[in-house]
């Protein structure tokens, strides 16, 4: 099963390679990964998506926790959370298809971030399935290039 794991870690040199080295060394897989500073400049938040049986996920969280620079490990999948990724998709947009592309990205609340006479680059934000849906719809029109971020996630606040 897929798990989104959020890791708070001290922003020290080499810390990312400690995390990725742990995954490659122990044969765990990483489907996506994203890191950035938090409100505290010396702390980074790393979100990673991985999959495996429960015992593997348990080892992953324990092993992450064992890294000296790791402050906190949260398996988001055990909580209520929101997750997002972003894609920039360059899609063919010629006379016949420009309107169609705009309609699609409007439905998915995307926006055009770069325009040329032959293509649009569109930005889409959402969870993985939404982004995949957009890609599926745009594919017949002609996708030229895709870049995607990893997943980021945040637990939902407790409802009062």
């Amino acid at each position, binding site marked *: 099963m897929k798990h989104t794991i959020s890791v708070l*870690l*001290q922003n020290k*040199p*080499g810390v990312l*390679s*400690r995390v990725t*080295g*742990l995954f490659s*060394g122990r044969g765990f897989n990483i489907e996506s990964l994203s890191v950035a500073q938090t409100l505290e400049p010396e702390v980074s938040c790393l979100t990673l998506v991985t999959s495996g049986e429960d*015992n593997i996920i*348990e*080892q992953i969280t*324990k*092993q992450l*926790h*064992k890294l*000296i*620079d*790791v*402050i906190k490990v949260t398996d988001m999948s055990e909580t209520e959370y929101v997750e997002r990724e972003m894609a920039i998709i360059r899609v063919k947009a010629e006379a016949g298809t420009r309107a169609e592309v705009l309609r699609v990205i409007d439905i998915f609340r995307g926006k055009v971030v770069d325009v040329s006479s032959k293509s649009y680059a569109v930005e889409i934000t959402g969870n993985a399935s939404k982004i995949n849906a957009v890609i599926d719809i745009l594919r017949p029109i002609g996708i030229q290039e895709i870049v995607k971020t990893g997943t980021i996630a945040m637990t939902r606040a407790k409802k009062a």
Partner: protein
Amino acid sequence: MKITGAQALMKCLKEQGVDVIFGFPGGAVIDIYDELLRNEDLTHVLVRHEQAAVHAADAYARVKGEVGVALVTSGPGATNTVTGIASAYCDSIPIVVFTGQVPTQLIGNDAFQEVDIVGITRPCTKHNYLVKDVNDLIPTIREAFHIARTGRPGPVLVDLPKDIVASMVNYTEPTGPVKMRTYRPTYEPHPGQIEKACKAIVKAKKPVIYAGGGVIASNASAELTELSHKLNIPVTMTLMGLGGFPGTDPLSMGMLGMHGTYYANMAVANCDLLIAVGARFDDRVTGRIDAFAPNAKIIHIDIDPSSISKNVGVDIPIVADCKHALAGINGWLKRNNALDQDGQLEKITPWLNEIREWKKKHPLGYVEETGVIKPQFVVQKLDELTGGNAIITTEVGQNQMWAAQFYHFNKPRTFMTSGGLGVMGYGLPAAIGAQMAAPGKTVIDIAGDGSIQMNIQELATARQYKCPVKIAILNNNYLGMVRQWQELFYDKKYSATPLDVAPDFVALAKAYGAVGLRATKPSEVEPVIKEALATDNTVIMDFVIAREEGVYPMVPAGKATTEMLLV
């Protein structure tokens, strides 16, 4: 007070209680070596290969129960330490390794003797550091020692660029124990888990204690022995746990696992409660996982949560230091009057009888042959003639297993072996480290003729520091353990295991100014050992043994531990 980085290093080492450093110099650490000259209270042991410095520091740490220290130069000095570090990591041994590094402004430049040793050792250290700012030097060293010795112990590497140790830094005394935001190991057990464990212990009819290296690390032998004795629970130990419970105790079943005793493996396979204490369910111990303790409830005490339920599902996990957890269990049992000895004895007697029957059926043993020295006999004689009181180190292979099976370790911190990584060449440098830690003690390296050649150069170190270590080579003229596998599973095709050219170990000892003795007949074994023990010098005893003797019992890889090949 402003001092140089090198001076600060010396001060920090002494703060940490270090008195012996194992090392080897070079350009990047020349300032540190210069400073060492002015610190006569720090004994520096000049090894002859950096790998040996780390193994020696490892054994020093094990004997003393403190942190061992190694110091080497950048580049090749640093890479030579990797095997030693990896071994200490696998065995959870607290050491701090200081490596020299090229000056900070050259880092990343492919400078002379530059390697990214922090990158190289990331997966085999508990943690490591590159000190890039001299103001971080002192806190880093203190943190390194703190991390090495606390929690699940392990090696920490500190990489010291040459300009850092030469710069000036403000030294201040430590203000208290190191506090870290992210690292706080759990020592105290959860009382609810202790209660659950105790209830299971009281209920069990066929309990077994499975004790590992964590018992030694946490100095928990007394608490373990108390638990076993109070309730008559039989004990088996891993290779790393030997000495954690007295080997001559009637409740000891010796080692379990691939080369464990028949009765220990049978007891584990048939027990209804397995009490794992500071042991990590290694594959050499469990054999085929689904057949390991199949009928047992499992209690697991371990300070590292990632050890728990890693290989084998655990019913009652206790994340804690063994000493604290066992004291908690003993205390609960006492408070709840669970120690009514007669009732307990009555309940457990059939189980102890069952084990006694297994012991009778297949005791540890070997077939004697006239005129030929059996390696097991040599180890038995070493045990007898040292009264079981020596510190034993081993190389790796058959020699290591015979040492584990036939020497009776009665006290913790008397058996040093490379268990997890299994490094041939560990034994001699380890013997030197052990001897430096316990100068008055008899230290014996039980060796194979293959392994001993991997760090034979350390004879010079032993001689230089007057370490009267005794090396007992069980000389079968083979890479014996691999040959045994070839005999059993590869149709006796001895590919690359005969050691066709071998040194004359007696002459070799002499070349180093040590003493060489040889035994070729059983009757010569005792006189040779006696002479060696009476010699105040480094001694090699070359025992020419039955060439194709095997280690038994043996659980073939991937088999259940009850499927043992026996003598």
